[in-house]
C-alpha cells in the first residue's frame, strides 16, 4: 500500500481520539505519581485533576466510537497541511533565536520567510525587493509600537552583548 493510500485510510476523528487517550494516560499517570488523591483525610492536589482525567477518558472514548462508526474517512491533503507545518517549524526557529540574535535580526528573517510562504505566485522574483521593504516596514512599526509607545524592552541579542 502506498503512503498516500495509508494516509487516506486514516480517519482524523479516530486518530485524534487515540492521541487524546494517549496524552490523557500520560497526564493520569503523572497525577498518580505526584500525590495521593486524599492524604490525612484531606483532599490532595491531584484529586480534582483525577476526575477531570476520568472525564476525558470517557469523552475521548465516545469520540473514538464515533470515529470508528464513520463510514467515509476524510482524507488528509498533504498539500494543505504542508504549509502550516513549514510555518510551525519557521516559528519554532524564530522562538529559538529570538533572544540570542535579538528582535531585529530574528524578526526580519521570520517576517521575510512568512512573506515568501504566503506569496505563492509565479512572479516571485520580481517581488523580492518589495518583500524586503515590507518586511523592514513591519518589523520597524512593531518595534516602535512596543518599545517607544508602550515602553516594552525588546531583546537586542545575547550574541551582540
Amino acid at each position: 500500500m502506498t503512503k498516500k493510500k495509508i494516509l487516506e485510510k486514516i480517519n482524523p476523528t479516530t486518530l485524534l481520539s487515540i492521541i487524546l487517550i494517549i496524552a490523557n494516560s500520560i497526564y493520569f499517570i503523572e497525577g498518580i505519581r505526584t500525590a495521593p488523591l486524599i492524604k490525612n483525610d484531606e483532599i490532595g492536589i491531584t484529586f480534582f485533576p483525577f476526575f477531570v482525567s476520568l472525564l476525558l477518558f470517557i469523552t475521548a472514548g465516545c469520540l473514538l466510537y464515533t470515529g470508528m462508526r464513520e463510514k467515509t474517512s476524510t482524507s488528509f491533503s498533504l498539500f494543505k497541511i504542508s504549509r502550516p507545518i513549514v510555518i510551525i517549524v519557521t516559528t519554532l526557529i524564530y522562538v529559538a533565536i529570538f533572544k540570542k540574535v535579538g528582535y531585529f535580526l530574528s524578526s526580519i528573517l521570520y517576517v521575510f520567510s512568512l512573506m515568501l510562504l504566503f506569496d505563492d505566485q509565479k512572479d516571485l522574483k520580481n517581488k523580492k525587493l518589495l518583500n524586503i521593504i515590507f518586511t523592514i516596514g513591519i518589523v520597524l512599526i512593531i518595534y516602535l509600537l512596543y518599545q517607544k509607545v508602550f515602553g516594552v524592552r525588546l531583546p537586542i541579542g545575547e550574541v551582540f552583548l
Partner: protein
Amino acid sequence: MENLTGIIQGFVTLFDPGVFIYVVLGFFVGTFFGAVPGLTATLAIALILPMTYSMDIVNALVMCMGIYMAGMYAGSITAITINIPGAPSAMMTAIEGNKMMQKGQGAKALGQAAFASMIGGTVGSILLMLAAPLAAKLALLIRTPGKFSLILFSFVVVVLAQRKTVIKGAIATILGIMLATIGIDIMRAASRFTFGIDALVQGIDLMPVIIGTFAISELLIQSEKSSSEYQLANKDILNQKIKRKDFLPSIKDIKEIGIMTYIKGTLIGFFVGVLPGAGGSVAAFISYSEAMRSSKNPDKFGTGTLEGIAAAESANNAVCGGAMVPMLAFGIPGDSVAAIVLGVLIINGLQPGPRLMTTQFHLVAPMFAALFVSALIILPLTLYLLGPYFIKIVSINRKILYSSIALVALVGSYVSTYSSFQMLVTLIIGVIAYVLRKQDFPTVSLLLGFILAPLFEKYLRRSLYISDGSPLIFLTEWDSIFFLILTAVFYYFLAIRKTIEVKTPKKSN
C-alpha cells in the same frame, strides 16, 4: 441612585479626549478585523492584550468595547457584498443580504444592517447598565457551594451550546481545564503536572493561551489557502461600489419590518449573550429563526428579506451588552470576547465579581458608556463618513496582514513575562488549537475551561472542606440547589428535548 451617578461619571470619563480616542481607535481596529474574512474581534482583542500591560486600565477597557461593537457589525459588510461573512455572527446576514445584493438591493441591505446593529448595540448596552449592578448584588448572596454549581452550570451550557458537536465541546472544555491544572496548586504550595520542566512550575499564563488559541491557529488555518483563492475574493470586493447614502435605511423599510422585530432581536441577543459560550452567531441564528416563525411572509426568508437582516444584526450586536453581565458580576464570560476582556482585567490585577462592581465601579462604568456610545454615535458616524472605503480596506495584501499578525502575536506573548518560553507555549497551544479547529472542536470552550478551572477547583475543594468531604453540601445549600436545577432545566431543553424533536419526525415517516 448610586449606580446612576457612577454611570454618569463613566460617561464623563469617556468623553475625556485622552480616553475617547481609545474608543475611536478600538472601533477602527474592530471594523477592520470584523470586515476582513477570517479575522474577528476576538483576534483583535487577543493581539491587543499584551499592549494593555502598559496602558491605563480604563483606556484598555474602552478600547476593547469599541473593538467588540465594531467587530460585531463589520462582519455584515463582506457578508452582504460578497457573501463571505467577515465574522461568524454575520452568517445569517449573508443569507439574506447577499441575495439582495444580487437583486441590486445591496444598499438597502447595508443600510438595514447598520441600523439594526445600532438599535441592538444601544439597547443592549442600556440593558447592561440596568442588569449588571443587580446581578452583582445577587452574586454577593451566592456562597461557595453555589459558586461551584454556577460554574458547573456554565460548563454545561458551554458544552450544550455547541449543538452538533457536544462531545467535541466537552473535550475542548476538559482540555482547557487540564491546561489550567499545570503548575503550582491553587490552595497549597506544591507543584503538579510539570513533567520535570522547571519553567512549568509557574503554570501556563493566560496570555499564551489566548494568543495561541486565536492568533496562531488562525495564521495556520489561513496558510492553507492559496493566494489565488484569496485574490479571487479580493477581486469580488474591489468590484463592489458602495456609496455613502447606502448606509442610511429608509423609514418605509423600518416600518415594514416592524419595531417588534428589532425589540425581539435585541432581547434575544442580550439574553443569549448572558449565557456562557453562546455568542453572536447563536444569537443571530435564534433571532433569525424567531423572525421567520413570526413573520407574515416566512416564505420570503432565504430569498433576500430585510426582516431577516434586521433580526440577525440587532441580536448579534445586543450580545455585546449581555455577555458583559456574567463576566462582570460573576467572573464568568458570556463569549470569547468577554473571556479576553476578563483576561485584560485579570492581567491588570482586577478580579471580576461583585466586589469589582461595588468598590471599583469607576473603572467599569466607562466600559458601559463606551459600548453605548460606540453603538449609538460612532457606528453610524463612521459608516457614513468612511463606509464607502471599508470595502477597499478589507482587500489588504494577505502576506502583509498575516506576517504582521504573526509578529504581533509572538512578540506580544514574549512581553508578558520577558521569556521566550511563553512564546514556545503560545506556539504549542496554537498548534493544538489548529488541530482542534480542523476537526470542528470549539476552541472558545477550551479558553473558557482554562479561565474557569481554577475557580471551579477552588470552590469544589473549599465546599468539600466545609462539609468534611461530603458532596451532599451541593444538595443542601439553597444557592447551589438553584443552579443545579437551572443546569437540569437547560440540559432538558438543549439536549433531551432537542433529541426528542429530532427523533419524532423520523417515527412519523
